[in-house]
């Protein structure tokens, strides 16, 4: 754990400084003064805390929410599994790991047996290429998935296990910031699938709008990811364009007014089409590799 590693490196310096400075007699403070100082210190610490502390939701949950809101299954809209051969760069593999994870959740939730088997294999292949073979436990998880393919509860539990192991892998390798890359591309794919398979009687549109409430934080998290070898320029600008378009809508501008929340927003068909078009443009760029 990095905590101990960092501690050991810094302890000597801290201890020496402590030895040199702690012996001096500090003036005694009254309790009242100390309390006031503590409040000030709390405020100053808060203002310098630059770490992005935002919890990213589960793409499986987002897919499940869309599914319950009346998302009808449309075959042929997911990223074709044979596209995986095109992903020869590190960036395209990371991004499409997220895309295929969202596709996998979509086909599983719609009980598409063969597609589920095809997509879990492609997710496994990409996890190997990325260097995360441990998340599939040497193939045991894939075997378990195949064995339980007709039991949706078990299959969804396995998808949750993949998510947990991915988080564990990134944390163990001091690489947690990459979660944002996986999530951002899974989010784009989920929004694309949502927009493509929405039906008139579904409440999917309100769910899509609700998702926009996390976009600012997602962009921030992608910008903060620390691997300089990933080229995420087009992903960031694509997400920013989606956000700018959304924030330009009249209804969304009213969010600044008191008492107006995301669930109150109703967009026109033209606005929804514009938003969907921008999502599709970014998604096309991601899956092109």
């Amino acid at each position: 754990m990095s905590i101990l590693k960092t501690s050991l490196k810094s302890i000597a310096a801290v201890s020496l400084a402590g030895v040199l400075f702690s012996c001096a007699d500090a003036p005694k403070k009254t309790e009242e003064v100390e309390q006031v100082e503590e409040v000030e210190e709390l405020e100053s610490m808060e203002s310098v805390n630059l770490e992005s502390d935002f919890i990213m939701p589960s793409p499986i949950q987002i897919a499940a929410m869309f599914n319950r809101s009346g998302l009808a299954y449309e075959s042929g809209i997911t990223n074709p599994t044979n596209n995986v051969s095109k992903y020869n760069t590190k960036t395209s593999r990371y991004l499409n790991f997220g895309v295929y994870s969202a596709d996998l959740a979509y086909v599983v939730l719609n009980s598409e047996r063969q597609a589920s088997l095809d997509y879990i294999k492609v997710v496994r292949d990409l996890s190997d290429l990325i260097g995360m073979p441990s998340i599939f436990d040497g193939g045991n998880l894939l075997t378990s998935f195949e064995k339980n393919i007709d039991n949706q509860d078990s299959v969804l539990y396995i998808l949750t296990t993949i998510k947990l192991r991915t988080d564990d892998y990134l944390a163990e390798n001091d690489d947690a910031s990459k979660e944002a890359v996986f999530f951002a591309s899974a989010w784009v794919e989920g929004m694309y699938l949502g927009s493509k398979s929405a039906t008139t009687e579904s409440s999917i549109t309100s769910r899509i709008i609700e998702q926009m409430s996390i976009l600012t934080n997602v962009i921030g998290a992608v910008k903060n990811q620390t691997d300089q070898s990933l080229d995420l320029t087009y992903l960031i600008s694509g997400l920013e364009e989606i956000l700018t378009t959304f924030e330009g809508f009249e209804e969304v501008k009213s969010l600044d007014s008191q008492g107006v929340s995301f669930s109150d927003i109703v967009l026109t068909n033209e606005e929804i089409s514009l938003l969907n078009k921008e999502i599709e443009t970014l998604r096309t760029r991601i899956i092109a590799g």
Partner: protein
Amino acid sequence: MKKTALTLFSIAAILLMSSAIIDIVCDTKTLKKEGISELNPFYYSASKVTEVDYDYKSSRREIEVPLFKGEKYRMIFNKKGLPKDVVIEIFEKDKSHDNRKAVFTSEGSSADILSYSPEKSKKMFIRYTIPKADGVTEKGCLVFILGYQLTFVTDTKDN
């Protein structure tokens, strides 16, 4: 002069060893596993391990948690990796709201693993208040797990 330097280094070495003992080795995998076992019947959604530095002054950290309308959630906090207690509070508004009131606080509870299931699902803000260190720098970790109720039966009346 030489003698003074030697004394200083000896004291530093003793402090270094005692600090290392005070330091908690965070076995995050085990702490997460313990937290996840409290989620049932909720599914794992996400987790965050916060490295806590007890500094010479108190400090606060805030985590934003997006919760979606109509969904059911459970939040688990595992404090076993902390050498000193950290107060956990949950708010429905961010820190720019001066008079926000906590919907949950760990104050008064001695439990190492805490659980909270919000009644309403909306964006929430978790605040950790970290007390100051007792003389030496101390470190620890606090594990947060978010779980959600996974239902996948088509329900067009949602919302």
